């Protein structure tokens, strides 16, 4: 248990170092881009804060999608010849907003869909069992009904 925690702690630490390294490099290149990235990841951070301990699904979903959206935008601004300020670009924020919403949607809809599907399968199974019971009653009469000790 403690070994696993230690491993997780080291992974988080490594990730934090990478993030800091990436932020440092990004800050050297363009401080606006760094601010953009940091602000874009605020919803993910908020989700991480709000989520109960041990659960990071929302944070992961929002962060993954936000990161996947932010990275091409930042790389695009860095590699294109024209200067583009992402911090003030409504289009960029629209991408980020869409990514946050998509992450949020995945977080909300995927478990709900799975639960709905499980419930539907149970109802279908009960329907089939009731149909078999009706057939038995047709053949043997209602007296086959017994009180089941639940």
């Amino acid at each position, binding site marked *: 248990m403690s070994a696993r925690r230690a491993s997780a702690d080291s992974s988080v630490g490594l990730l934090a170092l990478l993030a800091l390294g990436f932020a440092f490099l990004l800050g050297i290149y363009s401080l606006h881009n760094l601010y953009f990235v940091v602000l874009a990841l605020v919803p993910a951070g908020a989700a991480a804060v709000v989520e109960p301990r041990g659960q990071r699904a929302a944070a992961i979903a929002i962060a*993954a999608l936000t990161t996947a959206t932010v990275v091409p935008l930042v790389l695009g601004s860095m590699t294109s010849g024209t200067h583009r300020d992402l911090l003030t670009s409504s289009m960029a924020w629209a991408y980020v907003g869409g990514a946050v919403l998509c992450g949020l949607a995945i977080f909300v809809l995927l478990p709900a869909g799975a639960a709905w599907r499980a419930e539907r399968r*149970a109802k279908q199974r009960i329907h089939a069992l009731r149909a078999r019971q009706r057939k038995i009653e047709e053949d*043997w009469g209602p007296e086959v009904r017994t009180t089941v000790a639940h």
Partner: protein
Amino acid sequence: MAVDASPAAGGTPGKDDPPSPDGATLAGNYVFSTKKPVAAFAGKSHTAIEVTDRRLPSDQIVALVCSPDVVPRVEAMAALRGMSKPGALALKDFGPVDWPDGKQRLAAIYTAAAGGRFTPTGPMPPWQIIEAFLKPVAQTLVEIHGRAVVHRAIRADNLYMVESGAAGLALGPCVTVPPGYEQPDIYEPLESATADPSGRGDGSPRHDMFALGMTVMGLLLGREPGAGLDKDELMIRRFELGSLAAVIDLTMVPPEIADPLRGLLTDVAGERWTLKDLNFWLKGGKVDPPRAAPILLAVKPFTIAGKAVRCARSLSYMIGCAWAEGAKLLRGEELRRWLRHDAADATAANLIEEVLRERDPEDGGFDSDVLLATRAVMALDPQGPIRYHGLATDPYGLGPFLFEAQRTPEQLESAISLVDQGLLQKLVDARPAERRRATRQAINFERLRRWITSPQPWEGLERCLYDLNPHLPCRSPMAEGKWVTRGSAMVAQLDKLAQTKANAELKIDNATASFLATRLEADGYTLLALMTPEAVEEDVLLDAIRLFADEQVSLGSRPLPGIARWCGKLALRIAESIHHRPTRKELTAKVEAAIPDGNIPALFKALAIDGLKDADNRGFDAAKSGWERLESEVWAIEREAERLRLNAWRRGRDNVPVAAGAGAMLAFLLTLFTDSLR
């Protein structure tokens, strides 16, 4: 062997005729004038009326209509019907007749003797007795005994003159009453003389030979033998002096007829002349006289109930008559001392001591004095009838005896107690082998004992009566007074009854149940199903249908719509007891198809499927468990639904990173692509 009580029915009834009990009455062949009695043929227990044969109107015949209070001898009627001999009136026919009271009675049609009943006007000379009586009657008895019938009604006042003014005498009727029923005691040999008239039993040809001898004596004396003597005095004289010496001074016996009188009236049954002996003597032969040990009489008599007795058998007779006093004397020393010293009969004294040592049954319900007196009489005179609480019957005369006894509550109580004590079998066992074979039909006394006290509605006295009297008609109100003696005839009668609206439900009464139990050997469950169909299981109802189905076949498969309707209701109940609905539907259709045809075998066949009920029960049980299993599954799913939903939600949530990863890749590419377009 079953004997149809209606031989005059004239073959099988027509196909369209309604079923009638035992075929039909005699009315088809004879015209009865119920209001025209014939005094010459009147009897104590039958009514003689005028009758005309439709086929032979000139035939001189008379109908003797049996009283409903006695059991007629139907087997004897069947055996003697059509016999025509000069020494006996000819029984032409017999069968039930409609009586003015609305019921049916059994009637025997006899040829009316032209000379009427013989009335002795004085002593008849021996030669005339031999010619006019002994010769024709002896020849006729050969025929009667050859037909396995014992006449049992040979007496001086039952003789008829075949031709008016002619000398020939003929024996009168013997079939309208039980054997020996109307015989005065003197005409009965000692072994049956002390029995009640109804309980004398079928007897053997030796009984007829004794009665023949006593009739000769009556003709010789011109009066009833022993007339003028007190009944008990006469019996004591017979036991002590012998039957012949009891009624006549031996020196007064005419020598020309002395041999047959000695031969016929000996009290030792084994020494009594047979018909062969008599006919040999009538042809001029010499027959050895009977060898009988002299009866040892005590010099000093013993007095019991005011009568002086001198030997053990006369003592036993008086103990049977005065059982209360007899029991007291048996317990005392004086009686045994008298037997040992005065009567010199140590064997009798020892027998009484053995009787005194016998233990009484523990279940009580009897008077120990009665039992003691009965046992003593049985020990001292095993040849005689059983004598119990003032009643006396031969074990083989129990049928008519019980029938007679049930008319009086006091006698009935004693008679039931007599059977219940198991004394009858003891008496039979105590008798010599040849007397045990006195009847061709063995009686199961132990079974009767069980029945007579049974609380089962189809047992009790009624069952004993039907069992002991094979031709006793059904006494149930359901027989409606018809002369119904056979089980199949009762079934036909029930069908007639069922066709009336008043009898929509099949419910037989106790008497009918006893009758069907005896005549059709129906078992208790079947009878219970017929008595209380609503209280029995369905598989028992099938037995009831089987009973009627078998009887319909024995009735020539004649439709029985009434009973079929009854049975149809039972059959529908059976069909409805089948759980499997398709099978139930199929059976119901078959049953409903069979009811209108009155076809009970078809009803039975529809339902009598081997293992149907078991298979149905097994299937039903399996269906019940199947239904229960499914219900449990449903319940389990319902119970688990929330957990499964939660698990699925959790799985979904756990898969969010994966889905987010995939979404991220898509978002990356999409952003890259759309951003590059700008």
